[in-house]
């Protein structure tokens, strides 16, 4: 009896993931086994990271007497096999109605982030789990792969593994031999692709996995330094982990005395927040304050860049064998104000003020940290730690920190929600050079004279703080301000 309809396969991928090659293999394998098939793609944007799809129809009857009619487009509920090389692309297919209860879905677990997600400061990532869960709910069967494992140590492309997985599902009547023959016929990277095919074949046969993604790494809290452990343990339980981690960071950054200053500052906030057992403001301050107090000046950067083991780690990241030569160049550009920041305050004040508007110059350093000379130079910079308390930068940062803390404390007395927002405003103290300067200005513009503002018009201040906080994530470079300043014409 004649088959009722072609089997339909939709493949979603981003440009450069090898979706086109996967398509060619499928067509070639169908030909090898004598099944009529038709494939199509839109190659136009495929090479440039845009989302794209590939589509194949295969008639599950060998050399039928009449020619089946194929379509160039998938249609709702009639995608028998959906394969995607990026998990959130599945959401697009579901939106378009292609995925249904008869679909078998194959997806890689690892996200490839879009530009929109990457641009946002903080965490703009879309988690994969909700999409994977939706896929599992919507389909007959969903197979989720660990892309990193499939790519193997050589980092080969995932398309061959996906080909193997497609073969393993049995949705298409293609023999494994036909698939291998198709890979061989293409004549490109045959060995690596056959390995990938085998890996995919095996992975799709493995038991189903839950829809957990790898987007969230486990946070690693350092224990409190021994000398300060008692003080940290005296803090309320919810604050301890972050405070201990913060204290450890600041000992590494400067010394125990500096970490002690951190705990003193934190204690002020904790004392005002006994109403909420979760101590949200204190936890926020514990995090923000430690991050801020460990501000990345030239000394700190040099310290981090000369951490023992760094060169070995880079070598491992690159998968470079021992018998190769590794050259690591670091790009340091201490801006003028960062360099001036190393001077004592009185001397820094004598330096001429930079012209506003123009990007400020600085020292361009390209240090070959992988040579003994380069490494020593950076190490010498790191040793300036003893001098840090005398620098202009240190003085400025401490003043700004105190101003912010005063604002947090003032808010905490009146309104816990405002206190939390104000604590989080310290997110503006981030980045380097210009980014940091702009951020600190923004923070100061809200937290200055906080007490007076609070007394004069609490709600207005709350709105200001909220706006500044939201801008920190949505408009970090102040670009939207430009647009608002535009004249509207007559």
């Amino acid at each position, binding site marked *: 009896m004649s088959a009722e309809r072609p089997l339909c396969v939709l493949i979603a991928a981003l440009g450069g993931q090898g979706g086109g090659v996967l398509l060619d293999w499928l067509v070639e394998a169908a030909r090898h086994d004598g099944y009529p098939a038709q*494939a199509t793609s839109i190659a136009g944007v495929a090479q440039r990271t845009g989302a794209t799809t590939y589509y194949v129809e295969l008639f599950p009857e060998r050399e039928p007497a009449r020619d089946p009619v194929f379509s160039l487009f998938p249609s709702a509920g009639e995608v028998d096999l959906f394969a995607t090389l990026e998990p959130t692309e599945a959401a697009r297919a579901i939106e378009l109605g292609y995925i249904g209860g008869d679909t078998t879905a194959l997806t890689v677990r690892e996200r490839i982030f879009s530009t929109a997600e990457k641009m946002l400061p903080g965490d703009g*990532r879309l988690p994969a789990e909700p999409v994977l869960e939706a896929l599992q709910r919507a389909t007959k069967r969903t197979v989720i792969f660990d892309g990193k494992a499939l790519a193997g140590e050589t980092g080969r492309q995932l398309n061959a593994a996906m080909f193997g997985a497609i073969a393993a599902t049995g949705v298409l009547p293609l023999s494994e031999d036909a698939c291998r023959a198709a890979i061989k016929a293409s004549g490109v990277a045959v060995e690596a692709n056959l390995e990938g095919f085998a890996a995919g074949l095996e992975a799709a046969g493995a038991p189903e996995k839950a829809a957990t993604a790898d987007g969230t790494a486990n946070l690693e809290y350092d224990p409190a330094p021994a000398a300060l452990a008692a003080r940290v343990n005296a803090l309320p339980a919810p604050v301890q982990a972050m405070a201990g981690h913060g204290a450890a960071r600041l000992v590494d950054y400067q010394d125990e005395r500096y970490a002690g200053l951190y705990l003193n500052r934190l204690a002020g906030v904790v004392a005002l927040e006994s109403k909420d057992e979760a101590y949200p403001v204190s936890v926020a301050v514990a995090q923000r304050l430690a991050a801020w107090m460990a501000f990345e000046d030239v000394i700190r950067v040099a310290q981090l*860049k000369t951490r023992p083991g760094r060169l070995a780690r880079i070598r491992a990241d690159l998968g470079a064998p021992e018998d190769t030569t590794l050259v690591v160049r670091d790009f340091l550009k201490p801006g003028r104000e960062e360099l001036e920041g190393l001077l004592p305050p009185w001397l820094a004040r004598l330096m001429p003020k930079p012209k506003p508007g123009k990007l400020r110059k600085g020292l361009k350093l390209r240090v070959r940290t992988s040579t003994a000379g380069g490494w020593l130079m950076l190490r010498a910079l790191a040793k300036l730690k003893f001098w840090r308390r005398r620098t202009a930068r240190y003085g400025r940062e401490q003043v700004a920190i105190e101003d912010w803390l005063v604002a947090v404390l003032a808010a905490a007395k009146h309104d816990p929600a405002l206190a939390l927002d104000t604590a989080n405003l310290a997110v503006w103290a981030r980045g380097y050079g210009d980014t940091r300067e702009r951020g600190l200005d923004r923070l100061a513009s809200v937290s200055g004279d906080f007490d007076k503002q609070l007394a004069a018009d609490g709600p207005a201040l709350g709105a200001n703080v909220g706006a500044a906080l939201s801008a920190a994530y949505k408009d970090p470079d102040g670009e939207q301000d430009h647009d608002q300043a535009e004249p509207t014409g007559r």
Partner: protein
Amino acid sequence: MNIVAQLQGQIGPIGASGMERSFARQVEKLKLGEGETFEGEAILAITKALLQAGVSYVGGYPGAPMSHLMDVLAEARGPVLQPMGVMFEQSASEAGAAALLGASIQYPLRGAVTWKSIVGTNVASDALSNIASSGVTGGAVIVVGEDYGEGASVIQERTHATALKSSIPLLDPRYKMSRLVELTEQAFDLSEACELPVIVSIRIRAAHMTGKFTCKDNRRPAYGPKGPFPKPRNANDRIVLPPSTYIHEKEKVEKRLPAARQFILDHGINETFPGDGRRIGIIMQGGTYGVVQRAMRRLGASDAFGETPMPLLVLNAIHPLVPDQIEAFLADKDCVLVVEEGNPPFIERELRAIAQERRLDCRIRGKDVLPEAGEYVADVVRNGLAAFLAEEDADLGPEVRDRQKAIEKAADKARASLTVVPPTRPPGFCTGCPERPIFTALKLLQRERGAFHISSDIGCNTFAALPPFNMGSTVLGYGLGLASGGAIGNALDQPVVAIMGDGGFWHNGLTSSAVNAQWNGHEAVLIVLENGYAAATGQQHVPSTGSTAWGRPAKISITQALRAIGVTWLRRVSAYDVAATLKTLRAAFDATGKGLRVVLSDAECMLARQRRERKVTADRRKAGLPYVQARYGVDEEVCTGDHACMRLSGCPSLTLRPARDPLKEGPTATVDQSCVACNLCGEVAQAAALCPSFYKAEVIHNPRAWRKISDRVNRRMLDWLGAS
């Protein structure tokens, strides 16, 4: 990890060989002879059809989905075309390509040209009007690829309008490979029968469709270098001057179009499937046959092989329509559905006119149940067809309604499981693209100077209009970026800033933009991105590449051209040196009173460069010679997670990694394996005084003896210092 060869000197200059990509397999398919089976993409099948039809010349301008035709023929020029005596050129623009058809006006020469429509057709329309007026002696065929619908990169318009106004027959073939090939060959016969050029239009998905057909031998053209046409002709009734133009216009309606209709009828160009003779039917463009059939099968009105009780009229020729054929189909129907993609609905209107003129009592439906705008994908057509059948077909109607409801319900159920919106993923610059650093520099300049208007152009550079750059306020056409800013500088009281690729410069930019600005004394800054190729369409060569697509050395210099038109302020920048570029842009911006200022960036398209370098590196690896792998990296501890670098780059290889440090609020930056070490990250970090997180790591494989020794000493010292 991508690999950069150690010795740049080993790598040939840009485009010296003309063979960055290889189409050898495709070229082999063009050689197939009588009775052999062709298997491959439709666009290649069409290319084969041109050779089977006996073309004497082929030209065109690349653009999706027609680039492949040009690429393959360029490589086939030596092995296939020249031995047959077929002339091939990559025309400088679609206008040039269309003008090539001039060979068929006076001479019995068959020829074909190709481009992307609608944009290419617009550029070519001057020549097309003239050829259609003069009329042709030899078959002249224009193969256009319709970039309409999903993934389209151009404005959404119909080629149909051009065909109508110039009286050019327009074929929209049914997408079955054998039929597509047959109709392409018949297009030449049709052209000769009616003395008009003929357009064969194919949609983007169909161009990339795979399939097979049985070949014929390629046909050698009647005339060529080995047997030239005896004597030039100058029959002046072909010249477009009065009174010939008046005669041409009359001939079109009285002689040529009627001849076309007769040919269409006599040769079964359009196909009628009578069905079971019911009193409703469907009239469709040939190219929508597949989606109509799919919709009918889903609704229970057809089977997997296209067997249907529904009468169908498949118009493989959508201009001119044949009124007698239409009348024959409508005469015994109460109602027909017209499936016609795009707008305006020329076919539907003409059918109504025919029905009225011939006093036929048949209702015409179409855009009342199908969308007026947008691509006719399978589901869109199914929805329209379901509405039509439910209302008009008492026999199928009830089942259609049930099936339609079931399909919608299932899709809605799946959609309901979705709780998130997928991220948008527009195309962007490739990893290592030399255009990215220019926009980084422009963004830094905007930070200094405030926003300014940027006139964009066609090509990869248009992607800068999207995040993270958001640079580009207008796009008017290929090579028209500078011209399109002409009146803006005055209104905003700032220099016109325009971007143009080398493709755009040679296509139309030199005359319409640069000469225009220079001649009119515009205060303008033109940034020319000379990456060596028409990169967006697949790295086709342009006049400044250094060679033609088939490897003949030929270089036309952009700077010489600009100097020749009198441009004096001309600076060349090295794309990846952002600080220097920024300085040059600043100077260009401030050179008030100097007229047209040109900043030229000439770093090669990274895709093309990688293709060449990979080969060299692979050879060196095999030979055990030294080679370097280079990649950027980010120190996780140093990165503060503000992602300022992403906002100045948008490189696909610069991405996020979850932070382990609880003090960090979000993921930190990381550079993935696709990095090609273009240096932009280091440049941005320095030029924008951004961040010291980045490092560049180079791994030297198979180091030479002296390096091995010095490396050993260095590593000992590092050990001793406590670095490892």
